[in-house]
């Protein structure tokens, strides 16, 4: 008697959901065990995690606020992943977007909001898009692997941000600390009513819907999906692979750039190095977990934003190190990856001579 692995005729449909929640539960279990190992009460810890993330109106507001940049970056990354392009550079594209938006806000402070905000978004999209195009061009022209290029551009992008903020853009009133002047009121994306949420939420909804439409209903979107599934066949069918690569990376970069713009404008109201909070990397996790589907990306972004917010609660009440959230992110991704196995294959006990 031994374990046999057989491929399913059709991958489990609803099973994907089951796999996801199973993986989540497993990760929570392992994380709880880690807490216990450190001598912290595990169940209370997990409860605090949920409370901190979703337990009150403020907590949910915080989650939504955090989910905005994660969602936009993840949307961009997902679009690239569709074409099997490993865009790991959301972090750097985010930084460039923030730089672009700040450039607009600081160079044209007198422009009224009706002109300044769109200009900022345009600048952010151009800057982020450009940063996304560099690895695309290198990939198409010289077959350079985009994984490394996008990763290196992350580091370089952040250094460019620091260079501007420590140098020419430094606020004279900041006592030498690296930050720009506060943006003029016209450059700030306002809050929705009396909540602490800003209109970036609307941008997310808009982009999500637009991408969903693009992928599902347009011809280019169809070509993207087809090319992603089988590049050789797509080329044979004369699909414009090269152009798709450029489009996808520019779009990816622009979306991450908008995330940066929103953070600088809506959250911080200025540019400073601490705008970099690792959203770009979390976005990669989100894009993968969500199976590249805009609605799922929204849910996953909210979940992972909740994780970040909840972990703070853990820190405050139980003095758990800040890295706990990272562990959970890594675990969730690994378990989902492993769990997907069961979507495509099934295990059966078989006698050795059974066919």
């Amino acid at each position, binding site marked *: 008697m031994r374990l046999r692995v057989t491929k399913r005729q059709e991958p489990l449909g609803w099973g994907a959901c089951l796999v996801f929640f199973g993986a989540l539960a497993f990760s929570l279990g392992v994380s709880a065990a880690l807490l216990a190992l450190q001598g912290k009460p595990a169940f209370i810890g997990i409860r605090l995690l949920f409370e901190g993330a979703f337990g009150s109106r403020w907590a949910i507001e915080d989650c939504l606020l955090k989910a905005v940049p994660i969602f936009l970056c993840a949307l961009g990354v997902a679009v690239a992943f569709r074409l099997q392009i490993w865009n790991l550079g959301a972090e750097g594209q985010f930084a460039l977007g923030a730089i672009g938006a700040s450039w607009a806000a600081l160079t044209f402070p007198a422009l009224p909001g009706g002109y300044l905000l769109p200009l900022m978004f345009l600048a952010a999209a151009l800057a982020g898009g450009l940063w996304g195009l560099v690895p695309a061009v290198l990939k198409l022209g010289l077959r350079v692997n985009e994984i490394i290029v996008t990763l290196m*551009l992350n580091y370089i992008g952040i250094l460019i941000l620091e260079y501007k903020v420590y140098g020419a853009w430094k606020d004279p009133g900041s006592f030498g600390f690296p930050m720009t002047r506060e943006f003029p009121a016209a450059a700030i994306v306002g809050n929705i009513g009396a909540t602490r949420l800003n209109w970036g939420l609307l941008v997310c909804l808009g982009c999500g819907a637009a991408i969903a439409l693009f992928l599902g209903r347009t011809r280019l979107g169809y070509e993207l999906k087809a090319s992603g599934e089988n590049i050789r066949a797509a080329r044979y069918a004369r699909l414009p692979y090269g152009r798709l690569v450029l489009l996808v990376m520019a779009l990816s970069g622009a979306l991450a750039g908008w995330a940066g713009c929103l953070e600088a404008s809506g959250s911080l109201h200025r540019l400073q190095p601490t705008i970099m909070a690792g959203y770009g990397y979390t976005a990669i996790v989100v894009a993968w977990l969500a199976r590249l589907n805009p609605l799922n990306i929204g849910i996953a972004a909210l979940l992972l934003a909740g994780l970040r917010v909840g972990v703070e609660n853990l820190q405050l009440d139980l003095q758990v190190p800040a890295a706990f959230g990272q*562990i959970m992110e890594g675990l969730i991704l*690994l378990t989902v990856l*492993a769990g997907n196995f069961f979507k495509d294959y099934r295990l059966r006990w078989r006698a050795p001579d059974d066919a």
Partner: protein
Amino acid sequence: MTPELTIALLAAAVQSGTPILYATLGEIFTERAGVLNLGVEGIMLIGALAGFIVAKTTGVPVYGLLAGGLCGALLAAVHGLVCLVFQGNQVVSGLALTILGTGLSSFWGTAFIGQRTVGFEKLPLPLLSEIPVLGDIFFQHDPLIYLSYLLAPLMWAFLRYTRWGLGLRAVGESPAAAAAAGLRVLAYRWAGVLVGGVLMGFGGAYLSLAYTHLWTNGLSAGRGWIAVALVIFTFWRPGRAILGAYLFGGVMAFQLRLQAMGTTLPSSLLLMLPYSLTIAVLVFSSWRGRGSEAPAALGVNIEPRE
């Protein structure tokens, strides 16, 4: 740049490049077997932490080194499990491993920041260290660096001349053909992942046991990613790994010395050097058409047999 300063810089390049060398050799070994492991950064950190804790508790640096290698292999085994058994996508799994490794090392390591361990000290080799110029650059270091001098040619010989080395390469080039020839493909891939993990763990342990005798969260500071890039630069050949690693070690050491000499260039720009160089090196490698030297089956999972 005076001659003394240049020699000092080259010696610093060797030291600074050694953790990258270990990690690069590990990744070469893994990729030659056809498995892409992007979790180098996370594995290096776990190796560094494990090495630090064990050396500190036992007082014996060698135990620390071995512990670093062991823990590196353990974390790499997770990647092996997810990809080789559960058919997970290798790119994403590696990334998840980096996140997990970084998180775990920070989680457990926070308690050890600000503490010191015993480690490997400088050991000038008799006779060899007295050679003018070369002696200063290569033979006045700690034992782990000397070990790395041997490791690269050893790996080269292994891959080129031994039966197992050839088997490993065959598995990486064409698993189907290798299986048809009777090779146990899965076993070779596991070996690639685990041995690679050990070497990456060594690279991390080097940082906390020899380069410094300290630990901090994020000690490797991106060296793992540079190692992944270097594998492409070296065309998957261990011999060139030495050149690449020392080049990068040199750049990292160089920008600091430039500041010490009194440059007016802003440090943010200088810090970009290692990363820009990585991209330049990749472009150069691809331009020379050698990007296609990768093992043909790199990154491709093998479906389990019925």
